[in-house]
């Protein structure tokens, strides 16, 4: 299978390349990037061929591409790849506007290629276990869910805090993972979104986007849920951040901490403790699922539509902040 990498703007690309590198039936054809210096740097680092343009890369008769560009470019690159007949694994959030998202879904549909959204949390061992508990019905009717996807603010890569390229800050970056998990767990759609945000955290960075936020969702079955998407872990926190979910039901409570499988290290080499993770790697499972879907030409376990619905929630969260009241889904524009 011939695979190309479209942009290294998002460093998850490195993890995907790492997983693909060890597979015998995968040929990593090369890399193209909007920023030649960045593309050449990573091409060199991973021993890949660098292409001067996306067109040149796509002319290589690729089976599939991984799109790890700035969020605002997902649309352009996905449409290009689909038109070239390549299946697409696209970074989250899938899009930065409803129009872009619809166009991406339509282009892939028209070209007959699979579109998968990079939601590795669906392949996280504790969240998979949690899904089994929910499906068993042992919690009874689920009243509400209190969830977090907090992290450190991405300081090294500037586009994450560039409103035009990222589409927003913490609300954009960290709402979609748990929004997707909740849709998956509850098996129904969100009908209303409310959010508050601010830019108090990481003020030393003078961010132009929100750095703290809490989103409240209402699902069509009546379950309500909050997502804390704040970049509230300081730079010196012992780990990058995490994902937690507490589901409160009629007959029980399920608490999930997806990245709790750590040890605490107090080292003479560091002036702060570190919590290295020993749990299963979810990126590997996600990449495998994408490859299987391409090979079998079937819908992946996490589709482009899933990515669209999760990103729609983040877009609605921004709109709610603007108007100060809940926003109904689906969004028309």
């Amino acid at each position, binding site marked *: 299978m011939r695979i190309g990498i479209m942009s290294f703007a998002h460093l998850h690309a490195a993890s995907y390349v790492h997983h693909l590198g060890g597979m015998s039936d995968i040929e990593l054809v090369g890399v193209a990037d909007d920023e030649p210096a960045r593309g050449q740097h990573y091409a060199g680092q991973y021993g890949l061929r660098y292409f001067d343009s996306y067109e040149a890369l796509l002319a290589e008769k690729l089976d599939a591409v991984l799109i790890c560009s700035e969020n605002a470019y997902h649309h352009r690159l996905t449409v290009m790849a689909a038109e070239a007949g390549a299946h697409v694994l696209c970074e989250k959030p899938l899009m930065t506007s409803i129009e872009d998202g619809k166009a991406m879904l339509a282009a892939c549909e028209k070209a007959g290629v699979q579109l998968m959204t990079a939601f590795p949390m669906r392949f996280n061992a504790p969240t998979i276990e949690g899904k089994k508990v929910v499906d068993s019905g042992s919690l009874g009717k689920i*009243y*509400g869910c*209190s969830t*977090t996807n907090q992290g450190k603010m991405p300081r090294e890569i500037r586009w994450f805090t560039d409103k035009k390229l990222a589409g927003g800050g913490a609300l954009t970056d960290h709402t979609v993972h748990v929004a997707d998990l909740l849709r998956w767990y509850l098996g129904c759609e969100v009908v*209303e979104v*409310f959010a*508050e*945000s*601010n830019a*108090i*955290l*990481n*003020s*030393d960075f003078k961010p132009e986007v929100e*750095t*703290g*936020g*809490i989103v*409240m969702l*209402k699902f069509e079955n009546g379950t*309500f*849920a*909050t997502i*804390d998407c*704040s970049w*509230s*872990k*300081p730079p010196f*926190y012992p780990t990058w951040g995490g994902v937690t979910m507490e589901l*409160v039901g*009629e*007959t*029980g*409570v399920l608490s999930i901490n997806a990245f709790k499988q750590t040890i605490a290290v107090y080292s003479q080499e560091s002036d702060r403790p570190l919590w290295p993770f020993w749990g299963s790697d979810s990126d590997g499972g996600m990449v495998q699922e994408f490859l299987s879907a391409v090979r079998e030409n079937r819908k992946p376990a996490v589709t482009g539509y899933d990515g669209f619905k999760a990103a729609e929630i983040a877009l609605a969260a921004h709109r709610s902040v603007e108007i*100060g*009241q*809940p926003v109904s889904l689906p969004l028309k524009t």
Partner: protein
Amino acid sequence: MFRIGIVGTGVMGSFHAASWARTPAQVVGVQSLDRGQAQSIAERINTRVYDDLDALINDVDVIDVCTPTDTHHEIVLKAAAAGKQIVCEKPLARTYAEGKAIIEACEKMGVKLLVGQVVRFFPEYALAKSAVEAGKIGNVGVIRLKRVGFQPARNPNWFAEFDRSGGVILDLMIHDFDYARWVAGDVESVFARNVRSNQTETMDDYCLAILKHKNGAISHVEGAWAYPAPLFRTALEIAGDGGLIEHPAGSSVPLEINLDQLPDGSRPNIGVPTSPLLDDPYVLEIKHFYDILSGANVPLRITGGDALAALQIALAAIQSAQTGKRVKIEEVA
């Protein structure tokens, strides 16, 4: 020596009785609709049972009101009119108008009022508050507060009567509404969802609320009477632009005792956090008031105005949960 009269002899009445016993003050009597309960407390702390509230008020310097929420107004007004100093369990009152009337009556009569927002006396909460005040974490951006347990069981169960207790939002979450305001200042608006905000039958409730403070900070407050007994958990997290304070549920419990049943053969029927301290928070609270009554030159840790503001936030949360809209705090008056 101050003479104390305790009205109401449920869980809080018995806690307060035990706390007054740790001061030089003398509990001269207890009064309750449940004479048996009053008798048992009276025997424990060696005092007498009054059948008549007016007689008790007449005989004391301080009236300590530990009755159901909807009765606070009438009892406090009576005690204030008689010029007695007052301790009133939280919440201050069932309605804003009643709460305001209490504050005004106490001011008019020049009597001191301590409202039992006891979380301000929990050492971990007080420590976190003073760390914030000392600038350890910079400007506060996002606060998370959690207080979850099972349904309080009483016979008859006034907690289950929304018109009397205000449900989980007014009875339980008011602790964290007050704390959030103590840490991040006045609240501008509230958005909340819960399972049932105006039902009167004994059923589970779970609520998630988002507060926006006037300084831009956001608080996420979580309350439940829905967890399987005997679970009772609290947690606090305060993120600032210069650091983070975390105190997850149970992270600092120094003793763990697991028994099938309590030594007296019963199972616990109400969740109350126990922190093994030489002076528990209820003792600290009562001693604080005792010191102030004795002329100590320290400010009341919780003023009547603070308690009224916490009540206002809780009522705004109830209104938001009922209407599905964000409620500005001044809409509650």
